[in-house]
């Protein structure tokens, strides 16, 4: 029973981690919170529904389509809502926050309009395949989600630490002006970051569709809020913190549902971050600097 719950928690947590990675990449490079990330995630999930349940095509096509659509969305987000605000005189730090909120309102209502308010089932061929290991049941879907998440995290970590583009991204995150003086094409780096973050959101959307078998236009909001909580938990802009924070939150929520009051599941994330912010504002994995939390 406990082991099964832990497996459920890790499955949920690895999805949370991918959503949070999208948030943390954008925050790390641009220093803004992308409130539209949850809605891009939701669009990814709907693309998955469209491809697998409506058109009846295999799952891997759904992944490719979702990545394609969210990449376009990410590019448009950066081009329309973020770039016009950058480097402009007298723009408060709230402006990008508001404009991404605008994008999120637009996307939420657009999908509400196109797909309707209700839940859409996510059908795929191996939903019922399961293994019996001793007394516990493991679904193939859970393994698949976990493997995809871990692969993504490893690839992303490698890309960030070893490749030239990843180094450029980290340099831009460190200091935009210095990076551009040193010959980094910061404009392209920023666009790449937003696109990668959006694609991660799209993939996470399909994974959530697979895990919970239901997709609706409101799911972007709750996932977005949890993603925010996770990046606070793990430290803003911290990639490893986002992964660990996501897993922690997934486990904590599953445990609350299993052994506590399931009604308070959605509050776990926020009660945790309120305490985290007050006790350790730089996040669990954040560096201890005086400026953290400021």
């Amino acid at each position, binding site marked *: 029973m406990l082991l099964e719950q832990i497996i459920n928690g890790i499955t949920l947590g690895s999805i949370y981690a991918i959503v949070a990675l999208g948030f943390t990449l954008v925050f790390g490079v641009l220093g803004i*919170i992308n409130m539209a990330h949850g809605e891009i995630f939701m669009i990814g999930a709907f693309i998955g529904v469209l491809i697998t349940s409506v058109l009846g095509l295999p799952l891997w096509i759904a992944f490719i389509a979702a990545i394609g659509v969210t990449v376009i969305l990410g590019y448009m987000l950066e081009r329309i809502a973020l770039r016009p605000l950058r480097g402009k005189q007298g723009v408060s730090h709230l*402006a990008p926050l508001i*404009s991404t*909120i*605008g994008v999120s*309102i637009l996307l939420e209502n657009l999908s509400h309009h196109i797909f309707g308010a209700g839940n859409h089932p996510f059908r795929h061929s191996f939903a019922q395949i399961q293994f019996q290991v001793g007394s516990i049941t493991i679904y193939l879907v859970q393994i698949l989600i976990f493997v995809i998440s871990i692969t993504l995290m490893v690839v992303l970590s490698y890309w960030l630490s070893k490749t030239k583009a990843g180094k450029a991204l980290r340099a831009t995150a460190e200091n935009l002006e210095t990076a551009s003086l040193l010959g980094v094409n910061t404009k392209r780096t920023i666009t790449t970051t937003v696109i990668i973050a959006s694609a991660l959101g799209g993939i996470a959307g399909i994974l959530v569709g697979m895990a919970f078998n239901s997709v609706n236009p409101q799911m972007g*909001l709750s996932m977005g809020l949890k993603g925010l*909580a996770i990046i606070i938990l793990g430290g803003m802009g911290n990639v490893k913190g986002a992964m660990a924070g996501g897993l922690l939150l997934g486990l904590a929520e599953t445990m609350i549902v299993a052994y506590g009051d399931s009604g308070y599941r959605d509050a776990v994330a*926020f009660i945790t*971050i309120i305490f985290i912010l007050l006790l350790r504002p730089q996040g669990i994995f954040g560096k201890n600097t005086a400026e953290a939390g400021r």
Partner: protein
Amino acid sequence: MLGDIINPYHLQIVSFILINIILGISIYITLSSGQLSLGNAGFMGIGAYTSALLTINFDLPIFLGIILGAVVAGVFGILIGIPALRLSGVYLAIATLGFGEVIRVIFVNWESITQGSIGLSGIPHLGRELFKTFKLTGFDPDMLGLKNNQFIYLLVVLILLLVNILLVWFFIRQNKSRVGRAFAAIKMDEKAAESMGINITYYKVLSFTQGAILAGFAGALYAHVMAYISPADFAYHRAIDILIFSIFGGSELIWGAIFGATFMTILPEALRFISDYRYMIYGVILIAMMAFRPQGIIDVPLLKWFKKSLKLKRGVSHGIGTKKYN
């Protein structure tokens, strides 16, 4: 006659505008000391539930209920405001947003008292209760040529208008006082303000608490104007709406919050004929607004220009010729 012009539906919208103006001012006040709080929807919920529960369960008079709602929200404001001093910028925004979500989840789950997500109904209506008192004194709306319904909604609007005028007057006065200057100094540069001898702890908590009191007050009024509240009324979307009032209108001035609240309440109603698309348009407006006028519609230069052109016009009517010789 008066009875032909007054439409209860329009009056209802006007009362929403007036409540939203209070909410807009509530976030303006916290922003004026440089703190971005997204917890005002939570404080609004606390005010609304406090007042509604007190008036339903203990038959408290509405006015007392509303004041207690604001007070309880204010107490929570102090409780949240003091630890929140350690945070600023996005961190404060997310923590307060989290506070609002926690409050909402508590309202949903504390079913024995709040009736969960079904919400509270049968909250005494501000206008109807007042109407009863008027009836007791032998007053009949027919004397003004009004139907009962029209009179009730008119009463609500008049009370809210009076409250709004008092609040705006108070906060304009405060902005020109020692307190307002302290807020502005803290917003400009916290460390410099501290070195000038401003007690930033006191003033930051003061502005945070003022915001909470106002939001709670607006929430209590909302409960007694709607006569029905549910946790969904005080969720994330409300927090964002309140933020947009101030940011859209212009967060530097109190007039920005007032204009933003008015415009953003009328806009969805005005776009009702394309109701399927209106929230999409709302989103597009926000994006365009930030790209072209990120400081909000009303800023200091606009207000100065407005005052100047007003003065010029007055100058003409009084005759510029005399001025030349003075």
